[in-house]
Protein backbone atom coordinates (compact mmCIF):
# COMPACT_ATOMS: atom_id res chain seq x y z
CA UNK A 1 0.00 0.00 0.00
CA UNK A 2 2.85 2.34 -0.74
CA UNK A 3 2.05 5.68 -2.34
CA UNK A 4 1.48 5.17 -6.06
CA UNK A 5 3.85 6.70 -8.60
CA UNK A 6 2.12 9.21 -10.82
CA UNK A 7 3.12 9.32 -14.48
CA UNK A 8 1.26 12.47 -15.34
CA UNK A 9 3.51 15.44 -14.56
CA UNK A 10 0.74 17.78 -13.49
CA UNK A 11 -0.74 15.15 -11.21
CA UNK A 12 2.67 14.49 -9.72
CA UNK A 13 3.39 18.19 -9.26
CA UNK A 14 0.16 18.71 -7.37
CA UNK A 15 0.46 15.49 -5.42
CA UNK A 16 4.01 16.26 -4.26
CA UNK A 17 2.74 19.48 -2.73
CA UNK A 18 -0.70 18.43 -1.52
CA UNK A 19 -1.26 14.69 -1.61
CA UNK A 20 -5.02 14.87 -2.24
CA UNK A 21 -4.74 12.57 -5.23
CA UNK A 22 -2.84 9.98 -3.24
CA UNK A 23 -5.39 10.31 -0.50
CA UNK A 24 -8.30 9.79 -2.88
CA UNK A 25 -6.48 6.92 -4.50
CA UNK A 26 -5.90 5.41 -1.13
CA UNK A 27 -9.43 5.77 0.18
CA UNK A 28 -11.66 5.53 -2.87
CA UNK A 29 -9.64 3.29 -5.16
CA UNK A 30 -7.43 0.75 -3.43
CA UNK A 31 -9.20 0.76 -0.05
CA UNK A 32 -9.37 -2.98 0.72
CA UNK A 33 -13.01 -3.92 1.22
CA UNK A 34 -14.39 -7.27 2.33
CA UNK A 35 -15.47 -9.10 -0.76
CA UNK A 36 -18.62 -10.52 0.76
CA UNK A 37 -20.55 -7.31 1.44
CA UNK A 38 -24.26 -7.65 0.71
CA UNK A 39 -26.53 -4.96 -0.72
CA UNK A 40 -27.17 -3.89 2.85
CA UNK A 41 -23.77 -2.20 2.64
CA UNK A 42 -25.04 0.08 -0.12
CA UNK A 43 -26.89 2.37 2.25
CA UNK A 44 -23.86 4.24 3.54
CA UNK A 45 -22.82 5.61 0.18
CA UNK A 46 -26.49 6.09 -0.61
CA UNK A 47 -26.86 8.31 2.44
CA UNK A 48 -23.88 10.35 1.25
CA UNK A 49 -25.55 10.70 -2.14
CA UNK A 50 -28.79 11.91 -0.58
CA UNK A 51 -26.88 14.40 1.57
CA UNK A 52 -25.28 15.92 -1.51
CA UNK A 53 -28.68 16.01 -3.24
CA UNK A 54 -30.20 17.79 -0.26
CA UNK A 55 -27.42 20.37 -0.10
CA UNK A 56 -27.64 21.01 -3.84
CA UNK A 57 -31.43 21.40 -3.95
CA UNK A 58 -31.31 23.40 -0.74
CA UNK A 59 -28.86 25.93 -2.13
CA UNK A 60 -31.09 26.50 -5.14
CA UNK A 61 -34.22 26.78 -3.00
CA UNK A 62 -32.61 29.44 -0.87
CA UNK A 63 -32.11 31.54 -3.99
CA UNK A 64 -35.87 32.04 -4.00
CA UNK A 65 -36.92 31.57 -0.39
CA UNK A 66 -37.63 34.45 2.01
CA UNK A 67 -37.24 33.69 5.73
CA UNK A 68 -39.86 36.10 7.00
CA UNK A 69 -43.18 35.18 8.57
CA UNK A 70 -45.02 37.45 6.14
CA UNK A 71 -43.40 36.00 3.06
CA UNK A 72 -42.11 32.50 3.76
CA UNK A 73 -45.29 30.69 2.72
CA UNK A 74 -45.72 32.92 -0.32
CA UNK A 75 -42.13 32.51 -1.40
CA UNK A 76 -42.45 28.72 -1.25
CA UNK A 77 -45.58 28.92 -3.40
CA UNK A 78 -43.73 31.19 -5.79
CA UNK A 79 -41.03 28.52 -6.05
CA UNK A 80 -43.75 25.95 -6.79
CA UNK A 81 -45.53 28.05 -9.40
CA UNK A 82 -43.26 30.63 -10.98
CA UNK A 83 -39.63 29.58 -10.64
CA UNK A 84 -38.49 27.41 -13.53
CA UNK A 85 -38.52 23.81 -12.29
CA UNK A 86 -39.03 25.19 -8.80
CA UNK A 87 -41.64 22.52 -8.09
CA UNK A 88 -39.10 19.84 -9.03
CA UNK A 89 -36.35 21.21 -6.84
CA UNK A 90 -38.70 21.71 -3.92
CA UNK A 91 -40.30 18.28 -4.21
CA UNK A 92 -36.85 16.67 -4.40
CA UNK A 93 -35.83 18.52 -1.25
CA UNK A 94 -39.07 17.79 0.58
CA UNK A 95 -39.15 14.09 -0.27
CA UNK A 96 -35.38 13.90 -0.04
CA UNK A 97 -35.65 14.45 3.70
CA UNK A 98 -37.82 11.35 3.99
CA UNK A 99 -35.50 9.40 1.69
CA UNK A 100 -32.54 10.43 3.80
CA UNK A 101 -34.17 8.98 6.90
CA UNK A 102 -35.29 5.79 5.14
CA UNK A 103 -31.73 5.21 3.94
CA UNK A 104 -30.13 6.10 7.27
CA UNK A 105 -32.57 4.01 9.31
CA UNK A 106 -31.83 0.97 7.15
CA UNK A 107 -28.12 1.76 7.50
CA UNK A 108 -28.49 1.83 11.29
CA UNK A 109 -30.55 -1.35 11.47
CA UNK A 110 -27.92 -3.04 9.33
CA UNK A 111 -25.27 -1.93 11.81
CA UNK A 112 -27.35 -3.32 14.65
CA UNK A 113 -27.96 -6.64 12.92
CA UNK A 114 -24.35 -7.28 12.01
CA UNK A 115 -22.84 -5.87 15.20
CA UNK A 116 -21.03 -3.10 13.36
CA UNK A 117 -20.93 -1.04 16.56
CA UNK A 118 -18.68 -3.54 18.37
CA UNK A 119 -14.95 -3.05 18.95
CA UNK A 120 -13.00 -1.64 17.23
CA UNK A 121 -15.78 0.35 15.54
CA UNK A 122 -17.13 2.29 18.54
CA UNK A 123 -15.95 5.70 17.31
CA UNK A 124 -17.38 4.98 13.89
CA UNK A 125 -20.70 4.14 15.52
CA UNK A 126 -20.65 7.24 17.72
CA UNK A 127 -20.05 9.57 14.83
CA UNK A 128 -22.92 7.86 13.08
CA UNK A 129 -25.22 8.64 16.01
CA UNK A 130 -24.03 12.25 15.98
CA UNK A 131 -24.93 12.37 12.30
CA UNK A 132 -28.40 11.07 13.12
CA UNK A 133 -28.86 13.72 15.80
CA UNK A 134 -27.67 16.45 13.46
CA UNK A 135 -30.03 15.16 10.78
CA UNK A 136 -32.97 15.25 13.16
CA UNK A 137 -32.21 18.83 14.16
CA UNK A 138 -31.81 19.83 10.52
CA UNK A 139 -35.00 18.12 9.43
CA UNK A 140 -36.98 19.68 12.25
CA UNK A 141 -35.77 23.19 11.49
CA UNK A 142 -36.25 22.69 7.77
CA UNK A 143 -39.84 21.65 8.29
CA UNK A 144 -40.51 24.99 9.98
CA UNK A 145 -39.34 27.05 7.00
CA UNK A 146 -42.43 26.82 4.73
CA UNK A 147 -44.34 28.40 7.64
CA UNK A 148 -47.45 26.28 7.26
CA UNK A 149 -49.67 25.19 10.11
CA UNK A 150 -47.61 22.06 10.87
CA UNK A 151 -44.40 24.08 10.63
CA UNK A 152 -45.62 26.52 13.20
CA UNK A 153 -47.23 24.08 15.59
CA UNK A 154 -44.48 21.52 15.23
CA UNK A 155 -42.00 24.22 16.17
CA UNK A 156 -44.16 25.29 19.08
CA UNK A 157 -44.59 21.79 20.48
CA UNK A 158 -41.00 20.66 20.03
CA UNK A 159 -39.42 23.82 21.41
CA UNK A 160 -41.80 23.59 24.36
CA UNK A 161 -40.18 20.25 25.21
CA UNK A 162 -37.32 22.21 26.66
CA UNK A 163 -39.67 23.91 29.12
CA UNK A 164 -39.82 20.55 30.90
CA UNK A 165 -36.42 21.13 32.46
CA UNK A 166 -36.71 22.58 35.96
CA UNK A 167 -35.61 26.17 36.61
CA UNK A 168 -33.84 26.76 33.29
CA UNK A 169 -36.77 25.47 31.20
CA UNK A 170 -38.76 28.64 30.66
CA UNK A 171 -35.87 31.04 30.06
CA UNK A 172 -34.37 28.43 27.75
CA UNK A 173 -37.49 28.28 25.61
CA UNK A 174 -37.76 32.07 25.46
CA UNK A 175 -34.14 32.13 24.37
CA UNK A 176 -34.77 29.52 21.68
CA UNK A 177 -37.71 31.52 20.36
CA UNK A 178 -36.08 34.93 20.60
CA UNK A 179 -39.43 36.15 21.92
CA UNK A 180 -42.47 34.96 23.77
CA UNK A 181 -43.77 32.65 21.09
CA UNK A 182 -42.56 31.04 17.88
CA UNK A 183 -42.32 34.05 15.57
CA UNK A 184 -40.16 35.82 13.06
CA UNK A 185 -36.92 35.67 15.12
CA UNK A 186 -37.46 31.93 15.53
CA UNK A 187 -37.96 31.47 11.80
CA UNK A 188 -34.83 33.50 11.06
CA UNK A 189 -32.59 31.52 13.38
CA UNK A 190 -34.01 28.19 12.22
CA UNK A 191 -33.27 29.22 8.66
CA UNK A 192 -29.72 30.20 9.56
CA UNK A 193 -29.10 26.92 11.38
CA UNK A 194 -30.87 24.84 8.76
CA UNK A 195 -28.39 26.19 6.24
CA UNK A 196 -25.44 25.59 8.57
CA UNK A 197 -26.22 22.07 9.82
CA UNK A 198 -25.85 20.17 6.53
CA UNK A 199 -22.25 21.30 6.38
CA UNK A 200 -21.74 20.14 9.96
CA UNK A 201 -23.18 16.81 8.84
CA UNK A 202 -20.81 16.82 5.89
CA UNK A 203 -17.89 17.30 8.29
CA UNK A 204 -19.15 14.47 10.47
CA UNK A 205 -19.46 12.28 7.37
CA UNK A 206 -15.80 12.93 6.61
CA UNK A 207 -14.92 11.79 10.14
CA UNK A 208 -17.27 8.82 9.76
CA UNK A 209 -15.49 7.71 6.58
CA UNK A 210 -12.11 8.38 8.13
CA UNK A 211 -12.95 6.17 11.08
CA UNK A 212 -14.35 3.56 8.71
CA UNK A 213 -11.19 3.46 6.65
CA UNK A 214 -9.11 3.17 9.79
CA UNK A 215 -10.96 0.16 11.19
CA UNK A 216 -12.20 -1.20 7.83
CA UNK A 217 -15.69 -2.28 6.93
CA UNK A 218 -17.53 -4.89 8.89
CA UNK A 219 -19.16 -7.59 6.75
CA UNK A 220 -22.02 -10.09 6.94
CA UNK A 221 -19.91 -12.68 8.76
CA UNK A 222 -18.58 -10.20 11.29
CA UNK A 223 -15.16 -11.83 10.83
CA UNK A 224 -12.38 -9.33 10.19
CA UNK A 225 -10.28 -9.28 7.04
CA UNK A 226 -7.38 -11.65 7.75
CA UNK A 227 -5.59 -12.20 4.48
CA UNK A 228 -5.45 -10.18 1.27
CA UNK A 229 -7.68 -12.84 -0.31
CA UNK A 230 -10.54 -11.69 1.93
CA UNK A 231 -10.59 -8.22 0.42
CA UNK A 232 -10.96 -6.58 -2.94
CA UNK A 233 -10.12 -2.99 -3.90
CA UNK A 234 -12.97 -0.52 -3.54
CA UNK A 235 -12.69 0.48 -7.17
CA UNK A 236 -14.10 -0.83 -9.44
CA UNK A 237 -15.97 -3.42 -7.38
CA UNK A 238 -17.79 -1.24 -4.90
CA UNK A 239 -17.91 1.92 -6.96
CA UNK A 240 -20.00 0.10 -9.56
CA UNK A 241 -22.07 -1.66 -6.93
CA UNK A 242 -22.79 1.65 -5.20
CA UNK A 243 -23.69 3.27 -8.51
CA UNK A 244 -26.10 0.46 -9.26
CA UNK A 245 -27.61 0.97 -5.81
CA UNK A 246 -28.00 4.67 -6.50
CA UNK A 247 -29.84 3.80 -9.73
CA UNK A 248 -32.33 1.58 -7.93
CA UNK A 249 -32.76 4.17 -5.21
CA UNK A 250 -33.38 6.97 -7.69
CA UNK A 251 -36.23 5.01 -9.24
CA UNK A 252 -37.84 4.63 -5.83
CA UNK A 253 -37.22 8.32 -5.09
CA UNK A 254 -38.64 9.41 -8.45
CA UNK A 255 -41.91 7.60 -7.86
CA UNK A 256 -42.49 9.86 -4.87
CA UNK A 257 -41.19 13.07 -6.39
CA UNK A 258 -43.14 12.81 -9.62
CA UNK A 259 -46.20 10.75 -8.78
CA UNK A 260 -46.89 11.16 -5.07
CA UNK A 261 -44.98 14.25 -3.96
CA UNK A 262 -47.26 15.06 -1.06
CA UNK A 263 -47.85 11.52 0.12
CA UNK A 264 -45.34 11.74 2.96
CA UNK A 265 -46.28 15.28 3.93
CA UNK A 266 -49.20 16.56 5.90
CA UNK A 267 -52.06 18.52 4.26
CA UNK A 268 -52.11 21.04 7.10
CA UNK A 269 -48.77 22.38 5.98
CA UNK A 270 -50.48 23.83 2.91
CA UNK A 271 -52.42 26.11 5.26
CA UNK A 272 -50.41 29.22 6.21
CA UNK A 273 -49.30 29.33 9.84
CA UNK A 274 -51.96 30.69 12.15
CA UNK A 275 -50.94 31.26 15.79
CA UNK A 276 -54.61 31.38 16.84
CA UNK A 277 -55.71 27.97 15.56
CA UNK A 278 -54.06 24.64 16.42
CA UNK A 279 -54.69 21.82 13.94
CA UNK A 280 -56.78 19.04 15.50
CA UNK A 281 -54.00 16.47 15.15
CA UNK A 282 -50.42 17.61 15.44
CA UNK A 283 -48.17 14.89 14.12
CA UNK A 284 -44.51 15.19 13.30
CA UNK A 285 -43.08 13.93 10.04
CA UNK A 286 -43.10 10.13 9.86
CA UNK A 287 -39.42 9.76 10.72
CA UNK A 288 -39.98 11.29 14.14
CA UNK A 289 -43.06 9.23 14.98
CA UNK A 290 -41.34 6.48 17.02
CA UNK A 291 -39.58 9.09 19.15
CA UNK A 292 -42.80 11.07 19.45
CA UNK A 293 -44.54 7.92 20.68
CA UNK A 294 -41.88 7.43 23.35
CA UNK A 295 -42.32 11.04 24.43
CA UNK A 296 -46.06 10.70 24.75
CA UNK A 297 -46.12 7.29 26.36
CA UNK A 298 -44.77 8.66 29.63
CA UNK A 299 -47.94 9.96 31.27
CA UNK A 300 -47.01 9.11 34.84
CA UNK A 301 -44.78 10.48 37.58
CA UNK A 302 -41.80 8.65 39.09
CA UNK A 303 -40.10 9.85 42.29
CA UNK A 304 -41.81 13.16 41.92
CA UNK A 305 -40.35 13.79 38.49
CA UNK A 306 -43.23 15.16 36.42
CA UNK A 307 -44.42 13.18 33.39
CA UNK A 308 -43.55 15.99 31.01
CA UNK A 309 -39.89 15.96 32.01
CA UNK A 310 -39.75 12.17 32.09
CA UNK A 311 -41.16 12.00 28.59
CA UNK A 312 -38.57 14.40 27.28
CA UNK A 313 -35.80 12.49 29.06
CA UNK A 314 -37.07 9.18 27.69
CA UNK A 315 -37.14 10.55 24.18
CA UNK A 316 -33.57 11.84 24.38
CA UNK A 317 -32.49 8.65 26.13
CA UNK A 318 -33.86 6.55 23.27
CA UNK A 319 -31.07 7.91 21.10
CA UNK A 320 -28.41 8.51 23.71
CA UNK A 321 -28.62 4.84 24.70
CA UNK A 322 -27.22 3.97 21.29
CA UNK A 323 -23.90 5.42 22.42
CA UNK A 324 -23.38 2.72 25.03
CA UNK A 325 -24.51 -0.39 23.15
CA UNK A 326 -20.93 -1.36 22.24
CA UNK A 327 -20.67 -2.23 25.95
CA UNK A 328 -24.22 -3.40 26.53
CA UNK A 329 -23.78 -6.08 23.90
CA UNK A 330 -21.84 -8.81 25.70
CA UNK A 331 -21.72 -11.27 22.81
CA UNK A 332 -18.36 -12.26 21.41
CA UNK A 333 -19.92 -12.69 17.99
CA UNK A 334 -20.74 -9.66 15.88
CA UNK A 335 -23.08 -10.86 13.20
CA UNK A 336 -26.62 -11.93 14.05
CA UNK A 337 -26.24 -14.49 11.30
CA UNK A 338 -24.46 -16.65 13.85
CA UNK A 339 -26.66 -15.68 16.77
CA UNK A 340 -29.81 -17.84 16.55
CA UNK A 341 -31.44 -16.37 19.64
CA UNK A 342 -30.51 -12.72 19.36
CA UNK A 343 -31.64 -12.72 15.74
CA UNK A 344 -35.24 -13.11 16.90
CA UNK A 345 -34.92 -10.29 19.35
CA UNK A 346 -33.47 -8.12 16.61
CA UNK A 347 -36.54 -8.57 14.45
CA UNK A 348 -38.74 -8.06 17.46
CA UNK A 349 -36.97 -4.75 17.98
CA UNK A 350 -37.56 -3.78 14.36
CA UNK A 351 -41.26 -4.56 14.70
CA UNK A 352 -41.27 -2.65 17.98
CA UNK A 353 -40.05 0.52 16.26
CA UNK A 354 -42.77 0.14 13.64
CA UNK A 355 -45.38 -0.18 16.37
CA UNK A 356 -43.96 2.92 18.03
CA UNK A 357 -44.22 4.73 14.71
CA UNK A 358 -47.85 3.72 14.38
CA UNK A 359 -48.58 4.84 17.94
CA UNK A 360 -46.89 8.18 17.25
CA UNK A 361 -49.22 8.80 14.33
CA UNK A 362 -52.37 8.06 16.30
CA UNK A 363 -54.16 9.98 19.01
CA UNK A 364 -53.39 8.48 22.45
CA UNK A 365 -57.03 7.54 23.04
CA UNK A 366 -57.50 5.79 19.70
CA UNK A 367 -57.60 2.02 19.70
CA UNK A 368 -54.49 0.25 18.47
CA UNK A 369 -55.29 -1.15 15.00
CA UNK A 370 -58.93 -0.72 15.99
CA UNK A 371 -58.66 -3.50 18.59
CA UNK A 372 -61.29 -2.75 21.24
CA UNK A 373 -59.84 -2.17 24.68
CA UNK A 374 -56.25 -1.76 23.49
CA UNK A 375 -55.51 1.95 23.63
CA UNK A 376 -52.70 3.43 21.60
CA UNK A 377 -51.18 4.93 24.72
CA UNK A 378 -50.94 1.52 26.38
CA UNK A 379 -49.43 -0.09 23.31
CA UNK A 380 -47.00 2.84 23.10
CA UNK A 381 -45.99 2.28 26.70
CA UNK A 382 -45.39 -1.43 26.16
CA UNK A 383 -43.36 -0.72 23.03
CA UNK A 384 -41.34 1.93 24.82
CA UNK A 385 -40.66 -0.58 27.56
CA UNK A 386 -39.38 -3.10 25.04
CA UNK A 387 -37.36 -0.46 23.23
CA UNK A 388 -35.28 0.15 26.33
CA UNK A 389 -35.40 -3.44 27.55
CA UNK A 390 -33.92 -4.56 24.25
CA UNK A 391 -30.77 -2.60 24.92
CA UNK A 392 -30.61 -2.81 28.70
CA UNK A 393 -31.75 -6.39 29.30
CA UNK A 394 -31.81 -8.44 26.09
CA UNK A 395 -28.46 -7.33 24.74
CA UNK A 396 -26.40 -8.09 27.89
CA UNK A 397 -28.25 -11.27 28.84
CA UNK A 398 -28.63 -12.93 25.45
CA UNK A 399 -25.02 -12.12 24.70
CA UNK A 400 -23.97 -14.02 27.78
CA UNK A 401 -26.34 -16.96 27.52
CA UNK A 402 -26.65 -17.62 23.83
CA UNK A 403 -24.87 -20.53 22.09
CA UNK A 404 -23.67 -19.05 18.84
CA UNK A 405 -23.18 -20.95 15.62
CA UNK A 406 -19.57 -21.66 14.59
CA UNK A 407 -17.94 -18.78 12.77
CA UNK A 408 -16.18 -19.28 9.45
CA UNK A 409 -12.40 -19.17 9.74
CA UNK A 410 -12.24 -16.32 7.27
CA UNK A 411 -14.30 -14.30 4.81
CA UNK A 412 -12.89 -16.36 1.96
CA UNK A 413 -13.98 -19.58 3.60
CA UNK A 414 -17.50 -18.32 4.19
CA UNK A 415 -17.79 -17.35 0.55
CA UNK A 416 -16.61 -20.76 -0.61
CA UNK A 417 -19.09 -22.53 1.64
CA UNK A 418 -21.97 -20.49 0.34
CA UNK A 419 -20.82 -21.15 -3.19
CA UNK A 420 -20.86 -24.85 -2.52
CA UNK A 421 -24.37 -24.71 -1.14
CA UNK A 422 -25.72 -22.65 -4.01
Amino acid at each position, binding site marked *: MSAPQWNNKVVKWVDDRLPVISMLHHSAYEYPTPKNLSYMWNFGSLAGFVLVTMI*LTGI*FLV*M*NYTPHTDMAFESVE*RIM*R*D*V*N*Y*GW*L*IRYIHMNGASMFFIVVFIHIFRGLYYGSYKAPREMLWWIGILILLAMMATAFMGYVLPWGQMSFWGATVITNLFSAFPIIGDPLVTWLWGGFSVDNPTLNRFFSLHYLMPFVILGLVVLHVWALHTVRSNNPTGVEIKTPADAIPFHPYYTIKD*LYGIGVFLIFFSVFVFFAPDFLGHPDNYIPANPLVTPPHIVPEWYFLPFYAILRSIDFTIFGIPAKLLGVLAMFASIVILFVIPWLDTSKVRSSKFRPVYKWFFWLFVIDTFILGYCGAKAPDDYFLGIPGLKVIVMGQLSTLYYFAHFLVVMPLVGKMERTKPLPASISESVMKE*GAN*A
Partner: protein
Amino acid sequence: MSQTVHSSGEHQPDENRRDFLTLATTAVGAVGVGCALLPFVDSMNPSKDVLALASVEVNLANIPVGQAIKVMWRGKPVFIRHRTEREINEAEDVALNELVDPQTDDARVEKKEWLVVVGVCTHLGCIPMGTATGETRGDYDGWYCPCHGSHYDTSGRIRRGPAPLNLVVPEYEFLTDTSVRIG
Protein backbone atom coordinates in the same frame (compact mmCIF):
# COMPACT_ATOMS: atom_id res chain seq x y z
CA MET B 1 -22.24 -17.15 -8.43
CA SER B 2 -23.05 -19.42 -11.32
CA GLN B 3 -20.80 -18.08 -14.06
CA THR B 4 -17.45 -18.28 -12.33
CA VAL B 5 -16.19 -20.83 -14.81
CA HIS B 6 -15.16 -19.46 -18.17
CA SER B 7 -13.04 -21.14 -20.76
CA SER B 8 -10.08 -19.01 -21.72
CA GLY B 9 -11.16 -19.16 -25.37
CA GLU B 10 -14.15 -16.83 -24.97
CA HIS B 11 -12.33 -14.45 -22.67
CA GLN B 12 -11.06 -12.09 -25.33
CA PRO B 13 -14.34 -11.08 -27.02
CA ASP B 14 -15.89 -10.81 -23.59
CA GLU B 15 -13.27 -8.27 -22.56
CA ASN B 16 -14.23 -6.13 -25.53
CA ARG B 17 -17.87 -6.42 -24.72
CA ARG B 18 -17.21 -5.26 -21.21
CA ASP B 19 -15.31 -2.28 -22.46
CA PHE B 20 -18.13 -1.32 -24.76
CA LEU B 21 -20.70 -1.85 -22.04
CA THR B 22 -18.74 0.23 -19.55
CA LEU B 23 -18.27 2.97 -22.08
CA ALA B 24 -21.92 3.01 -23.07
CA THR B 25 -23.01 3.05 -19.44
CA THR B 26 -20.63 5.89 -18.67
CA ALA B 27 -22.02 7.84 -21.61
CA VAL B 28 -25.64 7.28 -20.58
CA GLY B 29 -24.79 8.17 -17.00
CA ALA B 30 -23.05 11.36 -18.08
CA VAL B 31 -26.09 12.36 -20.13
CA GLY B 32 -28.24 11.70 -17.07
CA VAL B 33 -26.09 13.87 -14.82
CA GLY B 34 -26.11 16.61 -17.45
CA CYS B 35 -29.89 16.51 -17.78
CA ALA B 36 -30.28 16.47 -14.01
CA LEU B 37 -28.30 19.70 -13.74
CA LEU B 38 -30.38 21.56 -16.34
CA PRO B 39 -33.38 22.26 -14.08
CA PHE B 40 -31.03 23.79 -11.54
CA VAL B 41 -29.45 26.06 -14.12
CA ASP B 42 -32.86 26.98 -15.52
CA SER B 43 -34.17 27.80 -12.06
CA MET B 44 -31.81 30.77 -12.04
CA ASN B 45 -33.34 32.21 -15.23
CA PRO B 46 -36.08 34.83 -14.82
CA SER B 47 -39.13 33.15 -13.31
CA LYS B 48 -42.64 33.35 -14.72
CA ASP B 49 -43.75 36.16 -12.43
CA VAL B 50 -40.68 38.18 -13.36
CA LEU B 51 -41.32 37.62 -17.05
CA ALA B 52 -44.97 38.62 -16.60
CA LEU B 53 -43.81 42.03 -15.47
CA ALA B 54 -41.25 42.31 -18.24
CA SER B 55 -43.35 44.84 -20.12
CA VAL B 56 -44.94 48.03 -18.82
CA GLU B 57 -47.59 50.23 -20.31
CA VAL B 58 -47.08 53.96 -19.89
CA ASN B 59 -49.66 56.69 -20.33
CA LEU B 60 -48.06 59.66 -22.12
CA ALA B 61 -51.02 62.02 -21.99
CA ASN B 62 -49.72 63.90 -18.98
CA ILE B 63 -46.22 64.73 -20.23
CA PRO B 64 -46.09 68.31 -21.57
CA VAL B 65 -43.87 69.16 -24.51
CA GLY B 66 -40.31 69.74 -23.37
CA GLN B 67 -40.53 67.51 -20.31
CA ALA B 68 -39.47 63.99 -19.60
CA ILE B 69 -40.41 61.22 -17.15
CA LYS B 70 -38.66 58.22 -15.67
CA VAL B 71 -40.46 54.89 -15.48
CA MET B 72 -39.19 51.62 -14.07
CA TRP B 73 -38.83 48.79 -16.52
CA ARG B 74 -37.14 45.50 -15.62
CA GLY B 75 -35.55 47.16 -12.64
CA LYS B 76 -34.02 49.99 -14.66
CA PRO B 77 -35.20 53.53 -15.39
CA VAL B 78 -36.51 54.36 -18.85
CA PHE B 79 -36.48 58.00 -19.93
CA ILE B 80 -39.43 59.16 -22.02
CA ARG B 81 -38.97 62.69 -23.34
CA HIS B 82 -41.66 64.70 -25.11
CA ARG B 83 -39.32 66.60 -27.41
CA THR B 84 -39.79 70.16 -28.59
CA GLU B 85 -39.51 71.14 -32.25
CA ARG B 86 -36.06 72.61 -31.51
CA GLU B 87 -34.83 69.42 -29.85
CA ILE B 88 -36.03 67.31 -32.78
CA ASN B 89 -34.21 69.59 -35.20
CA GLU B 90 -31.06 69.48 -33.10
CA ALA B 91 -31.16 65.71 -33.13
CA GLU B 92 -31.76 65.46 -36.87
CA ASP B 93 -29.26 68.08 -37.97
CA VAL B 94 -26.15 66.38 -36.68
CA ALA B 95 -23.81 64.99 -39.30
CA LEU B 96 -23.23 61.28 -38.74
CA ASN B 97 -19.46 61.63 -38.89
CA GLU B 98 -19.56 63.84 -35.80
CA LEU B 99 -20.97 60.98 -33.74
CA VAL B 100 -19.06 58.51 -31.58
CA ASP B 101 -21.65 55.84 -32.23
CA PRO B 102 -23.20 56.90 -35.57
CA GLN B 103 -26.98 56.49 -35.71
CA THR B 104 -29.60 58.70 -37.27
CA ASP B 105 -32.32 60.12 -35.07
CA ASP B 106 -34.85 58.39 -37.31
CA ALA B 107 -33.47 55.01 -36.42
CA ARG B 108 -33.92 55.77 -32.72
CA VAL B 109 -37.53 56.91 -32.49
CA GLU B 110 -40.95 55.62 -33.51
CA LYS B 111 -42.58 59.05 -33.40
CA LYS B 112 -40.45 62.15 -33.66
CA GLU B 113 -41.91 63.86 -30.62
CA TRP B 114 -41.25 60.92 -28.32
CA LEU B 115 -37.80 59.71 -27.37
CA VAL B 116 -37.70 56.49 -25.34
CA VAL B 117 -34.31 55.34 -24.02
CA VAL B 118 -33.02 53.16 -21.21
CA GLY B 119 -31.65 55.60 -18.66
CA VAL B 120 -28.43 53.77 -17.94
CA CYS B 121 -25.11 55.30 -18.96
CA THR B 122 -23.34 52.96 -21.35
CA HIS B 123 -20.06 53.63 -19.59
CA LEU B 124 -20.47 52.00 -16.17
CA GLY B 125 -24.18 51.97 -15.50
CA CYS B 126 -24.91 55.22 -13.65
CA ILE B 127 -28.17 57.11 -14.21
CA PRO B 128 -27.56 60.29 -16.30
CA MET B 129 -29.10 63.61 -15.17
CA GLY B 130 -31.39 65.72 -17.28
CA THR B 131 -34.78 64.11 -17.00
CA ALA B 132 -36.24 66.21 -14.21
CA THR B 133 -36.89 69.87 -14.91
CA GLY B 134 -33.96 71.97 -13.77
CA GLU B 135 -31.36 69.23 -13.84
CA THR B 136 -28.34 69.81 -15.98
CA ARG B 137 -28.71 68.33 -19.45
CA GLY B 138 -25.07 68.53 -20.40
CA ASP B 139 -23.52 70.37 -23.33
CA TYR B 140 -25.82 68.81 -25.94
CA ASP B 141 -29.24 69.44 -24.32
CA GLY B 142 -29.83 65.78 -23.65
CA TRP B 143 -28.44 64.08 -20.57
CA TYR B 144 -25.27 64.36 -18.55
CA CYS B 145 -23.81 61.51 -16.57
CA PRO B 146 -22.27 62.86 -13.36
CA CYS B 147 -20.15 59.77 -12.67
CA HIS B 148 -17.56 60.25 -15.39
CA GLY B 149 -18.83 63.18 -17.46
CA SER B 150 -20.56 61.68 -20.47
CA HIS B 151 -22.74 64.05 -22.50
CA TYR B 152 -25.73 62.77 -24.46
CA ASP B 153 -27.73 64.73 -27.02
CA THR B 154 -31.47 65.12 -27.59
CA SER B 155 -31.57 61.74 -29.29
CA GLY B 156 -29.77 60.07 -26.37
CA ARG B 157 -26.59 59.65 -28.41
CA ILE B 158 -23.19 59.87 -26.80
CA ARG B 159 -21.39 63.03 -27.86
CA ARG B 160 -18.56 63.52 -25.41
CA GLY B 161 -17.06 61.62 -22.47
CA PRO B 162 -15.97 58.03 -21.78
CA ALA B 163 -19.24 56.23 -22.64
CA PRO B 164 -18.75 54.15 -25.79
CA LEU B 165 -22.34 53.81 -27.01
CA ASN B 166 -25.60 55.69 -27.33
CA LEU B 167 -28.28 55.22 -24.69
CA VAL B 168 -30.08 51.97 -25.51
CA VAL B 169 -33.48 52.20 -27.15
CA PRO B 170 -35.71 49.51 -25.62
CA GLU B 171 -38.20 47.51 -27.60
CA TYR B 172 -41.50 49.43 -27.47
CA GLU B 173 -44.65 50.06 -29.41
CA PHE B 174 -47.35 52.70 -29.38
CA LEU B 175 -50.67 51.15 -28.39
CA THR B 176 -52.51 54.46 -28.98
CA ASP B 177 -51.30 57.99 -29.61
CA THR B 178 -50.84 58.54 -25.91
CA SER B 179 -49.86 55.15 -24.57
CA VAL B 180 -46.80 53.06 -25.16
CA ARG B 181 -45.83 49.55 -24.14
CA ILE B 182 -42.18 49.03 -23.34
CA GLY B 183 -40.81 45.51 -23.63
